[in-house]
């Protein structure tokens, strides 16, 4: 019974990580861009505002706002997994943006100069030279964010999840549901959920070390 719930938790986390990463890269590049035209200045202000607001409000509040506003727009829906994915993705994007920005900033300025000196444009140099190096630098911090995200998906138990019109539960939601059905074992279910989260995070840490080692080997 926990397997399916774990699946939903991980699916939400995965979707949110992908969305968050894309948002993060875009925002980071906008923020780092030379501010030499008005459109970029406006985009930069927007990125700043986005990061301020998202980092400044609780994830749970964001999730509930997203859930209720989508509820208003689409009166009924059969599957609503997309709501937490978007909510967590938008949330994570703000943090990822700052992580990736710090990574870009720590790449030697000579790399950009070298790219420009052979005639590559700013954006091409970013894409081919700077961002790949920045990503390598921020792998540990990104994984930190992914781990936080995986655990943070447990707040979806505050909303009703639906898949093909049936109500479903995420990992924590399932533990609570089972616990309420058999109050004597409530703690046992919570501990089980905690252990499963722990196992997932340990697995992620393992993957992180694998990736770090692989990236290092690439340079030898």
């Amino acid at each position: 019974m926990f397997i399916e719930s774990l699946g939903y938790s991980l699916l939400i986390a995965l979707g949110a990580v992908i969305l968050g990463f894309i948002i993060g890269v875009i925002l980071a590049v906008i923020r780092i861009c030379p501010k030499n035209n008005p459109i970029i200045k406006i985009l930069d202000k927007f990125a700043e505002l986005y990061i301020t607001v998202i980092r400044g409000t609780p994830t749970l509040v964001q999730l509930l706002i997203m859930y209720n506003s989508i509820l208003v727009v689409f009166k009924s829906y059969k599957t609503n997994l997309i709501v937490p994915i978007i909510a967590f993705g938008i949330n994570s994007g703000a943090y990822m943006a700052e992580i990736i920005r710090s990574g870009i900033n720590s790449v030697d300025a000579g790399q950009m100069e070298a790219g420009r000196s052979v005639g590559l444009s700013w954006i091409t140099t970013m894409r081919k030279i700077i961002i790949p190096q920045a990503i390598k630098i921020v792998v540990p911090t990104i994984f930190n964010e992914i781990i936080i995200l995986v655990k943070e998906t447990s707040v979806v138990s505050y909303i009703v999840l639906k898949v093909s019109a049936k109500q479903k539960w995420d990992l924590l939601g399932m533990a609570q549901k089972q616990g309420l059905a058999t109050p004597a074992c409530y703690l046992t279910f919570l501990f089980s959920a905690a252990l499963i989260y722990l196992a997932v995070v340990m697995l992620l840490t393992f993957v992180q070390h694998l990736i770090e080692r692989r990236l290092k080997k690439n340079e030898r």
Partner: protein
Amino acid sequence: MKDDRLLKVKGLYKYFGKIQVLKGVSCDIRKGERIVIIGASGSGKSTMLRCMNLLENPTYGEAWLDGSLLTPVDPYLHFDIIRTSRTYKKMMAGTDGSEKADAEIIAKIKTEDLLHEKNEGLEYLKAMRAFRKEHGMDINIARQRTGMVFQHFNLFNNLTVLQNLTLAPVELKLKTQEEADKKAMSLLERIGLPDKANAYPSTLSGGQKQRIAIARALAMDPEVILFDEPTSALDPEMVGEVLDLMKQLAEEGMTMVIVTHEMGFAREVANRVLFMDGGVIAEEGTPDEIFNHPKSERLRNFLAKVL
């Protein structure tokens, strides 16, 4: 305006905040010339070099490549443009309109930096735009034709040696991947490092890195290569291999502008030496003139310290 002047800088001024690094530098570089720029650190030689491909934007002044303007138009260098400005017209109205008054007013406008784009009227803006349109060149195109070699090599750390050489030609659609690979391999063979094609820069010595950086510049078939202290970050035993490669290029007729502290190299390779001091070109001449018959006290002092 076609002539054999490949690179031209005119009236370059550069401020970093309040510090004035360049104080009006002008210089022409002809095809096939090998210019060596010497001078104490802080004399502005690297800044001047970096203005030639706009890695540094000069505060005033212009840089030209092969008859095309790289920098924004500097109105102070074009009297015709100054004459279209409101400031000039206003000042001119109060005089007899003679040539002398014209010259005086232009000089005053230049020295006191009186032009302010927003207040100079439509005719002035039109003149600026027309000049830019006629002579302007996209900086990325200009940089494809101008190689640059850095003090700290700046090889792309995330790419193999071969990819370092092929990225720009392929990305800019100047060559297909096969053509670029072939050219890159022949360049690597030439510098004696074909076995390093698939190595990453972090595994190479400084001398190897710098030779590959030169090969990366050559892979673009540049018309001129700028060298920014190419041997300053090298261990002494590796300086020779880099200088040898540069000598080979010189013999093949490559146009080169070199900022260096290697006086022996300068004497041997340069056909013109510029001595920079305090943000200006203090003296220029053949290596013989500069090293054996220095005219100014400043140059004599400098040479006494470095030779």
